[in-house]
């Protein structure tokens, strides 16, 4: 599974309250989450998320287990999230909803083109290629299916 996008660089310890605030959660209208993704971090980010690879510092997605955080990013058009480390619930949630997560250390600049390949396990930007932390075969299969729901549908068919 290969993908690419423009880099949106964020700092470390981006918590799920920053990704989608509690005040936007009580709805079933998914478009609300995408519309407010990362708004408490920087309202100007909204227009830059479509087609983006988020390049974050460590501990991305810490805090609440709210899956809406991963959904908000995916629905806002984020292609993948790369960070040196992730909070584990966010990491699982992202895989489960089909948003690729790439555990890696790689320097990058805002707006740079980023390319990655999940099977081959690498990420590349600004002429540098780095390995990404290996996913278990199960996680790769879930991501390849597009998330846990399609994965389980496929498995039970």
């Amino acid at each position, binding site marked *: 599974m290969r993908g690419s996008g423009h880099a949106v660089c964020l700092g470390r*310890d981006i*918590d799920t*309250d*920053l990704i989608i*605030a*509690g*005040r936007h*959660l*009580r*709805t*079933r209208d998914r478009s609300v989450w995408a519309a407010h993704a990362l708004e*408490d971090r920087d309202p100007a980010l909204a227009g830059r998320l479509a087609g983006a690879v988020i390049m974050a510092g*460590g*501990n991305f997605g*810490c*805090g*609440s*287990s*709210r*899956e*809406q955080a*991963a959904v908000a990013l995916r629905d806002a058009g984020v292609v993948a999230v790369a960070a040196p*480390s*992730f*909070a*584990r*619930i966010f990491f*699982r*949630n992202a895989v*489960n*909803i089909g948003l690729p997560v790439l555990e890696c250390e790689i320097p990058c600049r805002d707006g740079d083109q980023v390319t990655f390949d999940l099977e081959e396990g690498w990420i590349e930007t600004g002429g540098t290629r780095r390995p990404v932390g290996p996913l*278990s075969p*199960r996680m790769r299969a879930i991501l390849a299916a597009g*998330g*846990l*729901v399609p994965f*389980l*549908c496929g498995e*039970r068919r």
Partner: protein
Amino acid sequence: MSTLSERILGAGAGSYVDRAVDRAYVHDGTGLLARAAWTEIGSGVFTDPDRRYLIFDHIVPANTSTTADLHREMREFAALTGMHFFEIGEGVCHQVMAEGRALPGEVIVGADSHSCTLGAFGAFATGVGATDMAGIWVTGGTWFRVPETTGIFLEGALSGAAAAKDVALAYVAALGMDGATYRTLEFVGEGAASLSMADRLTLCNMAVETGAKAGIFHADGVTRAYLAGFGVEAAVQVPEAGTYPDEIEIDLGDVVPLLALPPRVDAVCPVAEKEGLPVDQVFLGTCTGGRYEDLEAFAATVRGKQVAVRTIVVPASRAVLARAVATGVFAALVEAGCAVATPGCGPCLGAHLGVLGEGEVCLSTANRNFKNRMGVGGEIYLASPRTAAATALVGAVTSPEEFL
């Protein structure tokens, strides 16, 4: 030596295992998305309803018609699946589960990050998201990566005005917000054995604030006695001799009342350093600091006096509230001028009652002080119930030592 996580999950750290989930629970916040994912899977299969729980705690009672509609849908879903259902006012999901519904050696998964609270019973308890939960409902189990373990050696005993919450802030500060990512915190040592179940629950509750997957105590006589109070029999777990690859030590006797400064839970200093900082609101409650012992400690300080600033008390569960009523703790709180709300999460997540205004400061017994969590522009300081009580009486950050 095997760690408790390895023993419960039945494999060495780093391996991936498929495990049946002994108990699984969701609340009104995550239940909705989990139900949507479950519906999408479309099999109609819901396994082990007798070991699955839906607990209304996040926005209770409903604050808007939209919330009310979503609540109704979830009630109908609970009835459809046959899982256990807890109405508004029964309490915060982790506390409800801690009242005789979590046993040593079990694998427990909650669709909430603070599900690690239940490790206090010697269970492997961790949080997942909504889609993971839907998968568990259908298949009865899920996969885990068996975590590495950080040993937290507790020596000595708490003294003075220090409380379990202060110990929690101490280890969070020592490890940092991602110091234990993907790991289990295993609390061991004589000091660990000396702690009550309420203290252990508070310590395990905050494990996730270091990025940990779980926080865990070995079940011992204290665990057995507590569970016997709920009519449940439990076996004890004996620690295996050996060392942890990674460990920290805390002498409980050295712990002083602490404060986490906004907006980072690991930015911790002694309460004494911020003495006199004015606050607009004090909040006593949550899955961290809303248990009976917390209300009792708060009441001991405010009894017969008047709070000087608006103070919201939310008991963690109906059982906590009932006990506080029976012992007179509740009357002491009300007579001291506290506003009391329905058992549940209350203002903790900033979604309904007790929301902060721009620039307002709250001292809270909760576990998180992220930017805007309790309201846009509000600032949250985290502390123990005793510190909260002293602060409520003065209207500014105050060390509980002054009221001992």
